[in-house]
């Protein structure tokens, strides 16, 4: 599948989800199970990306202090907990990674 096909199908399906209830107002409702599932989608999907990106930097598990990404991610989590803001979190995490990289 070419990237164009992927974007076209992914885009059409995304549009279909945005259009669904607007188009069919009153004809059907969000199934209760789906409604309940939706609030777990962002934390589940995002964590499923974050954990390997942080804990498996070279395609294998690295829990030690030698894993700079793990330490930098810990800094980012602390900043996110304190500020609840996106940009400070990204800036702090990137700065921590680059500093660790330069120092060790």
């Amino acid at each position: 599948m070419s990237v164009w096909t992927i974007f076209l199908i992914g885009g059409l399906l995304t549009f279909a989800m945005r259009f669904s209830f607007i188009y069919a107002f009153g004809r059907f409702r969000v199934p209760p199970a789906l409604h309940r599932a939706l609030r777990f989608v962002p934390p589940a999907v995002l964590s499923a990306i974050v954990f390997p990106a942080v804990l498996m930097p070279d395609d294998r598990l690295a829990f030690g202090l030698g894993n700079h990404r793990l330490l930098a991610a810990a800094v980012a989590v602390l900043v996110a907990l304190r500020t609840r803001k996106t940009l400070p979190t990204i800036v702090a995490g990137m700065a921590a990674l680059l500093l660790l990289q330069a120092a060790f």
Partner: protein
Amino acid sequence: MLWAGVRAEAPILVGVFPFGLIYGALARNAGLAPLPAQMMSSIVFAGSSQFVAAKLIAEAAPGAVIVLTIVVVNLRHLLYSASVAEYVRDLPLRWKVALSYLLTDEAYAATIVHYELDGVKPESHWFFLGAGLALWLTWQVSSALGIFAGAAIPPSWRLDFALPLTFIAMVVPTLLDFPVVAAAATAGVAALLAYGLPYKLGLIAAALVGIAVGMILETRQ
């Protein structure tokens, strides 16, 4: 009314702009050519799914897996659609199509507040259109700038790390009760265990496990 929508959207745009820059740069780092990278911003037009898709493309995941992942990441739009449906039900079809295309997280956030405070008036859809178009234009321009600048960023800057950092910033504020924390933790651990699954299916499998765990725990409470 169009301008009222643009004005209501303006504070959100300040936060969206850097995201577009990061998306554009990451898409280029993932090996996407400038035109497809920009086209993803206009065809899919949903930030977090674009980040994930760019990552999967970089890892040479099969197209079907990428499409499936885009759909799951974008499922929440069903909820937005259901939420605004009653307010736009009397509009002509072309308006419904246009507003649906523009129904992003950020346009929804500004528009639903407007509808809930002011109710439906004859010009309300212009507010929706203004908020949606302001976001659309910001996303296209910031993506383009990121795509343009992305090729010039050296690998030693570790730009790929901006993706997990962005997602940490998005996920931490949602961790407010036990089922959500458990869903996030299980999905994360499952993603480590499922890392070697073929066709890069680990991400989607881990996410589904996390969602199931969250729902089960919520039912028990």
